[in-house]
């Protein structure tokens, strides 16, 4: 992106600072989206301040930036939307988590999605616990009644673990199903 050159050094600093803030706000986006967004903002500033007499440069630039708004606020919907697009395009869990964090203010559905993703992560922890503490992790029943699915420190008498070696494959299956369902739900939300 070509930097705009101002005659007035103070105007130059204001412009450079604003561009730095924009760059910071869009750093989560893909390289192409970052370049495109930055070029568009830069083009807007250039068109609005072009041919401003040096004595009015600061005034015109400040007016332009004020109308554009604080990058942290005005670019939030754009970053959230583009991140959601990237997440649904790539199915990458990192992008999905970032997109959820950015979109969480857009509705309770995203909060639920975030909860389900946390559940997936806790399932992952359960696998590790099953390897380290096999007798304390599993599907526990007592007198034909469900007691717990997960990890327990206390192994009371009469408590039996049902899944045994099948626990890890079952948890992997559950994680896969949850991840797949969440990503599909995420796509549906994005379409709305």
């Amino acid at each position, binding site marked *: 992106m*070509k930097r*705009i050159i101002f005659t007035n050094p103070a105007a130059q600093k204001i412009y450079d600072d604003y561009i730095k803030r924009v760059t910071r706000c869009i750093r989560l986006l893909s390289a192409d989206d970052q370049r495109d*967004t930055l*070029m*568009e*903002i*830069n*083009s*807007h500033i*250039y*068109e*609005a301040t*072009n041919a401003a007499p040096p004595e009015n440069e600061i005034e015109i630039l400040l007016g332009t930036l004020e*109308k*554009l*708004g604080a*990058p942290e*606020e*005005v*670019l939030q*919907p*754009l970053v959230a*939307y*583009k991140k959601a*697009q990237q997440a649904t395009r790539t199915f990458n869990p990192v992008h999905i988590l970032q997109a959820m964090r950015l979109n969480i203010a857009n509705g309770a559905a995203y909060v639920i999605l975030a909860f389900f993703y946390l559940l997936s992560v806790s399932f992952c922890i359960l696998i590790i616990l099953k390897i380290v503490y096999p007798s304390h992790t599993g599907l526990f029943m007592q007198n034909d009644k469900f007691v717990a699915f997960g990890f327990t420190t206390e192994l009371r008498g009469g408590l039996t673990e049902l899944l045994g070696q099948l626990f890890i494959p079952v948890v992997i299956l559950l994680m896969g199903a949850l991840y797949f369902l969440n990503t599909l739900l995420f796509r549906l939300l994005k379409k709305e």
Partner: protein
Amino acid sequence: MYYICCMNSEFVQNWFSQVKKGTLSYIILIILDEKEYYGYELVQEIKIHTTLEVAEGTLYPLLNRLKAEGIVDSKWVEQESGIPRKYYTLSKSGKATLTEMQKIWSALETAINKLQK
């Protein structure tokens, strides 16, 4: 009978914000139906034709969304200054969308006019 004729300005302002938000994409499509515009030029055009005070920064997320929906197309055009402009045009699907929106707007206008009589 005694009436307190005090307008609830906060309610009106909130309502107007919603109307603005809902109509901005329609206004953009109408303007782009004439010819292609770049972002800054589009902002000026909205200001000329409407009394809407549009926060300029909010226009770009909206244009991006319209592009992602396939309603508008965009292309970068190099300029002598070395700072290119991104021109927006209405896509084929955008033209069809606009026609549908115009029908809805007309029906709404007729209904409100009837109610106001």
